[in-house]
Structures are given as structure tokens and as C-alpha cells.
């Protein structure tokens, strides 16, 4: 499914998992369960040896996945064999894409049913070639904005991104936290209208989700909280978390639309 089609039914819940954790064989089944539990988009991480934008939880998952034999070839096999109706989005570091070759990478995404690409260490200034390759295969290249992104740059990034704009909710790296800095809500307000806004980094509770949807987010991204549960083998708790997050997202939206009527 295209990302834009999914956003016709926003607000959405986006769930991140690290491909290959605990094993490449387990990943397709995990994607199916997450989709059934209510995720609207699945972000499938390609583990990297040096994930500079990630906190300890996702770093550890990446190391487990690499140790379990995950690599880019297997990644695309796993992505292709996960047959779900929701969009699958690639998330990974630029050197892995560069090593594969941009054209081959975009082709592999398209052939394995991946409809969007997020590269957390690739600023739009350096992304021209990848953007052209993605465009050729009809893949969305999704850019990120952060609380310290200046307004003019933020508008430029919102112009350049496709699918949605990834709003980094706080300074620092990924990792579950229970607070919600004002930064995140200010940033949602600063992003121009016209492109869906998805908020991630440190989002792990239904309360945070409610607050962000209320502040104008079109999607919530949950990563480390899910990865943590997968790491502990607590898959029922994972499904439960996704159900509760999804409910928070949907309920807050209904509450919002009700007051508008």
C-alpha cells in the first residue's frame, strides 16, 4: 500500500522494529502480528554497526540482529515475505544504502513491497541522488525535522519530503521516555500544512499519543518501546501496547472531531 493511501485514514500509528531481531526468520511473523494488533504503517529497520541516531535499546537490537546474520540481502527477502496490507517503510543508515548502490537499493525496495524510505543520518542537502532513484521506482523518501531546525530550513524540508514529514520530538537519540517536551508540540505547529506529520523519538505511552494527536500530529511513531518488548520476548505485551496506543490515537481524533461539530 502507498503511504498516501494510509494517511487517508489518519491519524495513524506507526511501529518500528529492527529486522532480524531476534532472528531473520522471526521477522515476517512479527510484522504480521504487529499489523493485526493495529499498526497502520510498519517501519522496518536495517541494523547498522554504527547507529548514531539511536539510543541503547535500538543499538542493542541492531547488534543482536547482525549477530543473528541479518544483512541487506536477507533484509529484502524478509521484507518481501512479510505479506501485510499496511505500508512497509525502510529505515536505515546511509552507508548501507551507499554500499548497495542507490539505484539497486531503490529497485530492491520496490520489488520487496517497501513504499517509503527513512534515512536518519542523511540531510536533504546530500540526498539528491537517492531522491532521484526513489522517484524512479515510486518510493517516498521521508525527511526528518528536529526541534532545532530553523524555520526556513523546516519549510524547505517539508517541501522536499514525500509520504510524510518525520518530526523528531526531542533533542538527542531514540529511546522510550515518559515525558513530552514542549518542543514537540511547538514543532508540530511550526511544520506547514499540506504534508502529514508523524512524530517519533521517545514516544511510548498512550498519554503521549493523545497529547500529540491533540497538538495536530497525523501519526505517532513508536520504536524503542516495541523493540524493548521484542528483546525480552514479550510479544503479548507488545500486541497489547500497540492496541492501547492505537486506541489512544483513534479516540483522541474522535474527541477532536466531535468538538469541531
Amino acid at each position, binding site marked *: 500500500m502507498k503511504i498516501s493511501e494510509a494517511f487517508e485514514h489518519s491519524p495513524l500509528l506507526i511501529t518500528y522494529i529492527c529486522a532480524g531481531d531476534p532472528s531473520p526468520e522471526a521477522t515476517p511473523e512479527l510484522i504480521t502480528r504487529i499489523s493485526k494488533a493495529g499498526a497502520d504503517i510498519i517501519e522496518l529497520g536495517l541494523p547498522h554497526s554504527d547507529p548514531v541516531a539511536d539510543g541503547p535499546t535500538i*543499538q542493542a537490537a541492531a547488534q543482536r540482529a547482525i549477530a543473528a546474520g541479518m544483512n541487506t540481502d536477507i533484509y529484502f527477502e524478509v521484507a518481501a515475505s512479510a505479506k501485510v496490507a499496511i505500508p512497509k517503510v525502510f529505515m536505515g543508515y546511509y552507508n*548501507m544504502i*551507499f554500499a548497495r548502490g542507490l539505484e539497486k537499493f531503490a529497485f530492491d525496495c520496490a520489488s520487496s513491497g517497501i513504499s517509503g524510505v527513512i534515512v*536518519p*543520518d542523511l540531510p536533504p542537502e546530500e540526498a539528491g541522488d537517492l531522491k532521484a532513484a526513489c522517484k524512479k521506482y515510486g518510493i517516498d523518501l521521508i525527511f526528518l525535522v528536529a526541534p532545532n531546525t530553523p524555520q526556513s530550513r523546516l519549510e524547505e*524540508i517539508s517541501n522536499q519530503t514525500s509520504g510524510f514529514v518525520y518530526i*523528531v520530538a526531542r533533542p538527542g537519540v531514540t529511546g522510550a521516555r515518559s515525558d513530552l517536551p514542549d518542543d514537540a508540540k511547538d514543532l508540530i505547529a511550526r511544520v506547514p500544512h499540506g504534508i502529514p506529520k508523524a512524530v517519533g523519538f521517545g514516544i511510548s505511552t498512550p498519554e503521549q499519543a493523545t497529547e500529540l494527536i491533540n497538538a495536530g500530529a497525523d501519526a505517532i511513531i513508536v520504536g524503542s518501546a516495541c523493540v524493548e518488548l521484542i528483546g525480552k520476548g514479550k510479544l503479548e505485551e507488545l500486541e497489547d501496547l500497540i492496541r492501547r496506543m492505537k486506541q489512544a490515537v483513534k479516540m483522541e481524533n474522535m474527541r477532536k472531531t466531535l468538538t469541531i461539530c
Partner: protein
Amino acid sequence: MPETLIKPLEDLAIAYEHLKCNEEFLTEYDSLLRDFAGRPTPLYFAKSLSREMGCKIFLKREDLVHGGAHKLNNTLGQALVAKQMGKTRLIAETGAGQHGVATAIVGACLGFKTQVYMGEVDIERQKMNVFRMRLLGAEVIPVKSGSRTLKDAINEALRDWAASYEDTHYLLGTAAGPHPFPIIVRDFQSIIGKETRKQILIAERRLPDSIVACVGGGSNAMGIFAPFLKDETRLIAVEAGGQGIGKTNKIAENGASLCCGTDGVLHGALTRILQDPFGQILESYSIAAGLDYPGVGPELAYLAEIGRVEPQMADDKCALGGFKMLSQLEGIIPALESAHAIGYVLNNPETLGDMAIINVSGRGDKDLATVMAYENI
């Protein structure tokens, strides 16, 4: 680089561009280099080594800089920039600990809170420098992620900076990483080459036929090479050959990114890196912790690609040969890093021409335990 770091990097680039032409800033930097760091360092004619090699060899004595290595040239400069930017905290990565010590020194001297990220593996092999940093008032934070060496210490420092940029300057120690660091570090280290040029013209009335420097990330090499790039002088960059050119899918047996690496993106720069076919960064290896890095500065990679700089390798054994030879012939114990440059010279005198300069980037006191362990003493 992650979006969160784009603004801090841009701010740093603007501040540096502004300050590098500011007379007051330069005066303060120069006086610290002179009165605190002990510059200029001598260019010493190595009589016995020259006789042995059959050509004139000079040593640029960066081992005599306060702290025991060239690293202070850069940390003083960057700390002054940080002070002008209103930062109150410094963070740094360190491999051998020399850059960590140099950062701890400026932290104490200029009044910053200082935290140094250091891989657990490196903490174990450089205990003396860890103690030195703590004595100087810096906190040493062990890095437990990844290969637990220099590259992971850089990752951890970048992660810290992404959350702390408002009051913190990331004081990167080598001419690698994202823009503007390769330029800033090269510029502050180029004092080495500027002095060398003046000194050799006074001593010999001509430029040398060759300059030899060791390369990890490339700060001492870029520092001495930069003022000679437009000349005919042969510039030889000696990388860590480690235990050989072999590699597995996780580990390279060397730290020779120029000689054995391929194009890739590491720490925000497109350069030569040691990686597997999928783009995972390999763990590098060298007896010298300061050369144990699977990447190299992007400018050196470029200069090697266009043929201006000649990359070479010296393995552990060759470096140990250089370590002993310089100690015995000249009464100078070089850092194991610098010993790679000396080892190369010992093995390849025919490539040097009639007159060569070796950059002795640091002193070897910190390495005695490593050498004793290697030799089973």
C-alpha cells in the same frame, strides 16, 4: 548526520569562519601556543639516524608539546572557539587517550566542565592516560557499545551532543567527521607544517624531498602536510598495517583505511573506510590505539586519490622496530603511533630522497606497558 546535529554544526562553522580572521582571537591562541603549549617545537637534525639511513633526516618534535603530543594544538584552538560561542561544557572522544588528555588540559586551563568518551577496550590498554584525565578534573565515560574502541567513542560523543548542543561543544580530535571538523582540525594543526617550513628553510635553505607522518584519522599528517601541498615535496602517510591485510566479516587486521578501505560514509563524511560488502563498519586493529580507527579524514582520502599524498603501511612489528631504534639512536622515545612513521623510514630509505622530515607526533611514555606486554617483559 542526523538532523538534530545540522544546526550545531552550522553554528560551529559560522563561528569558526568568523573567528579565524579575528585578531584578538588569534592573539590569544598564539600566546597560549607559546606560553602554555611550549611552541614552537624544535625541528631536530637526527644525526645518528641520518648516518644509518644515508640521507638527512629531521624530526619535528611534537612529542615536546605540553601533554606529550600534537593534540593540544587543536584542543586549545577549539576550546577558544567554544568559549567565544558561550559553551560551558566540552565533550570529546579518545582512543589512545592523548586527545582526551589534551581536552582535559584545556578544560582545566580554560574553565570548562569536561567529559571524555573512551571505549572500554581502550580504557584497559591506556590506564595511565585515564588516570591523567581524571587528575586533570575530567570525567572519563566508558563506552560499552559496538567494538568499544575509538569509533564507538565518536558515536557516543555525537549522541551526547545531539542532546546537549546548547551548552556543550563537541571537541573532535582528528581531521575527520562531519564538516566543519576536518577543516578546523587541519587549520589548528597546520601550525606544525608552518613552523616546519620556516625551520627547514633556515636550516637547509630548501624544502625537504619528503615528509613522513603516521595516519589514524589524520590530524598530525594533515597538520604537517597542509602548508606543503603546493610544493614538490613527497608526502608519505603511514597507516597502521596491524597484523596484516586480512579481514573477516567483522574485523580488519589493520587500521589502514587509505590502503585497504573502500569509499563509504562514516561519521558524516564520504571517505575511505574499512567495511564489509553491505556497508557495516569493521572493527579495526593496531598496536597503537591512536591509529585504531576504521576511517580517515576526507581530505586525506581525496589527496590520496589524486596522488598528492602517498599512503603506505607499517605493521605492528615495523612500528616496534621504529620505537626501539629512535630510542636507542637518538634518545627519543616516540609514541607507538609516531613509531609507524619511523618504522616506515627504516624499511624504505630509498623512497625519501636526500632530505626527509618525520613528524614525531607524540612521546612514547604512555606506551611502555603496551610494549612490555607485547615483548613479554
